[in-house]
């Protein structure tokens, strides 16, 4: 990795080691995502992909034991999740959390105000919310439902992309956003993401399957096995994976074992 990349990358992950309850899960991960780029991180279940996603966002259960993460050159280690969000980082959760009794509209307004650091006028917010929901084929009634409560798999993932659209991050990490979706829902979600792509956004798409990458074209593909990135390449690497499987790509390291 060159110094030039390091200085320009919006998200810079250097030799990152992460432990949960004293057990090391990530054993030194290097990755750089620049604005305008889409990176795919692929790997079998239990390889550490979601650990990386949660760590980037600052989940208190994950302990950084070595290396560092920089967002626009700033070390994230000491920042809480809300501070990271305010600095332009977004995580689309693999398992979005239900918050009973809190309506989507109320939650989204507080989130937008929190990230922007100022209160957006209600009328302006509503207009933006309704327009964005329409793009994601979401009914207006969605805004009045409780956060993720009773949502179908597809509704949860669309709601994550809705939040991404409203919060306008500089770096977005999509953690298994394709899991649990049928092909129609997958297309809606992928279209939603594609609409947000542009020169001001860097994206890290974490996925187990190649199929999402048929709809969201990555510039780079990385393969993670057992807490390390074992291969990096262009979009053709995803096709190679599809053909040969993780075992073929990663050699004997790629056992794909569950943790």
């Amino acid at each position, binding site marked *: 990795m060159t110094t030039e990349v390091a200085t320009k990358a919006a998200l810079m992950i250097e030799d990152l080691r992460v432990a949960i309850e004293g057990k090391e899960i990530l054993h030194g991960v290097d990755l750089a995502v620049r604005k305008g780029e889409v990176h795919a991180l692929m790997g079998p279940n239990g390889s550490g992909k979601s650990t990386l996603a949660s760590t980037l*966002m*600052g*989940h*208190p*259960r994950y302990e950084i034991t070595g290396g560092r993460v920089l967002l626009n050159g700033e070390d994230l280690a000491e920042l*809480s*999740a*809300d501070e*990271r*969000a*305010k600095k332009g980082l977004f*995580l689309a*959760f693999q398992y*979005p*959390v*239900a*918050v*009973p*009794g*809190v309506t989507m509209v*109320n*939650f989204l307004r*507080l*989130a*937008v*105000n*929190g*990230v922007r650091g100022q209160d957006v006028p209600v009328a302006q917010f509503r207009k933006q919310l309704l327009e964005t929901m329409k793009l994601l084929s979401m009914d207006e009634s969605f805004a009045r439902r*409780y*956060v993720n409560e009773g949502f179908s798999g597809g509704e949860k993932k669309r709601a994550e992309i809705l*939040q991404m659209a409203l*919060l306008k991050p500089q770096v977005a990490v999509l953690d298994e956003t394709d899991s649990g979706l049928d092909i129609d829902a997958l297309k809606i979600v992928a279209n939603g993401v594609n609409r947000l792509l542009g020169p001001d956004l860097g994206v890290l798409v974490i996925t187990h399957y190649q199929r999402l990458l048929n709809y969201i074209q990555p510039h780079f593909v990385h393969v993670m096995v057992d807490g390390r990135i074992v291969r990096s390449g262009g979009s053709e690497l995803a096709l190679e994976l599809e053909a040969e499987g993780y075992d073929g790509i990663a050699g004997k390291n790629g056992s794909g074992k569950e943790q």
Partner: protein
Amino acid sequence: MTLQQTTGLSRAAVEAVARASADPDWLRARRLEAWAACEQTPFPTVQDEDWRRTDISGIDFDAFAPVAAPPQAVARFADLPAALRGVLAEESGRAGLVVQLDDGRYYVELDPALAAKGVVLTTLAQGVRALPQVVRGHLMTRAVRPSASKFAALHGALWSGGALLYVPPGVTIEQPILSVTWLATPQVALFPHALVVLDSAASATFIDQQVSPPGERFAALSVGVVELFPGPGSNLRYVTLSELGRGVYAFNHQQTIAERDVQLNLLAVGLGGRLTRQHVETSLVGPGANAEMLGLVFAAADQHVDYDTVQEHVAGHTTSDLLYKTALRHNARSVYSGLIRIHKDAQRSDAYQANRNLLLSDEARADSIPKLEIEANDVRCTHGATIGPVDEEQLFYLMARGLDRVHAEELIVEGFFHEVTDRIPLEGIRERIAATIAQRLRE
């Protein structure tokens, strides 16, 4: 104003209160009878099963003195203390208002159209004269008797102030009636009483608010009794809103006797007090009576709250639906005990009881004790209790969206209470609760 502050809880104080309010003989006799019961009953201790988790041995009851002051009307709303006017629950409109100060002053207003229909709203002391038969027939005789407990006896002897609402048959009061009790005299012992009598097919909403200066330095004792008598086919919504300061000890006994086909909606909101013991009992004595009993309690630093509820199904085809939710911060402590009692003739009854507790800190503690006494065999009875901390995953999710910890917790608490607040069709109350809790979460 000079107060005739009595010396402690004594027979002399009872006599002084009876004199000050110019009691008729029957009432004076009842006070003395209650005092006799009081003298024979010791204060409960942690040895008593019902008081095992609420220790009142540290309270020096003799440090509080009842006020024996002749009732004195305040002519205009604007003449009430500004601090009190500021805390009146803001409703878009109200049908009537009773304000009772702890120095004998009171203020009453009632929509003249309702007065013309025979609705009576007064202080209870005035009610003794205005509606002697109603007061005599209901006051601490059918619902809360002085023999019920030490505190009921104390109250029976020393009550002063409070409100009387009487609604004649078939009269509907659309907008809420507000009753406000204001404690502002240091070390005062106040014994407010609310008596609500709805004749058949009448309808009313009664909001009962207890307020004192905020902060911990103001100490006072409040021993209240609430007696609700919704007659056949009537609709009664009763809300008790405690916003007492955190140096106030409050003991409250509320009982409803619901006749045939009554629709009863009860809500107990507890946001204040140093130590609060609230007994809420509902007797469904007529078939078809239907009671909703909601509770919303928020407690923080050093507060102790103890709510015990009774859902008593005396008649068949009655339903009760209870939901009490408590959120605790810092080292607050809560006790909830809920009894469902279904008499043997109360077939086809349906009782539901749920108590949910949210602990916002490791030091907070909640206990939940359900009790069932079911003598009928063809009934439905469901109960459940949960006690748990804030879900860290919820917190992380909200924070990942840019909400700081305080806002995230506030939203979780708001969501937690939503199940209750969603069922309160009084916007002013809902907003007041939300604002108070938001403020308390920042303290």
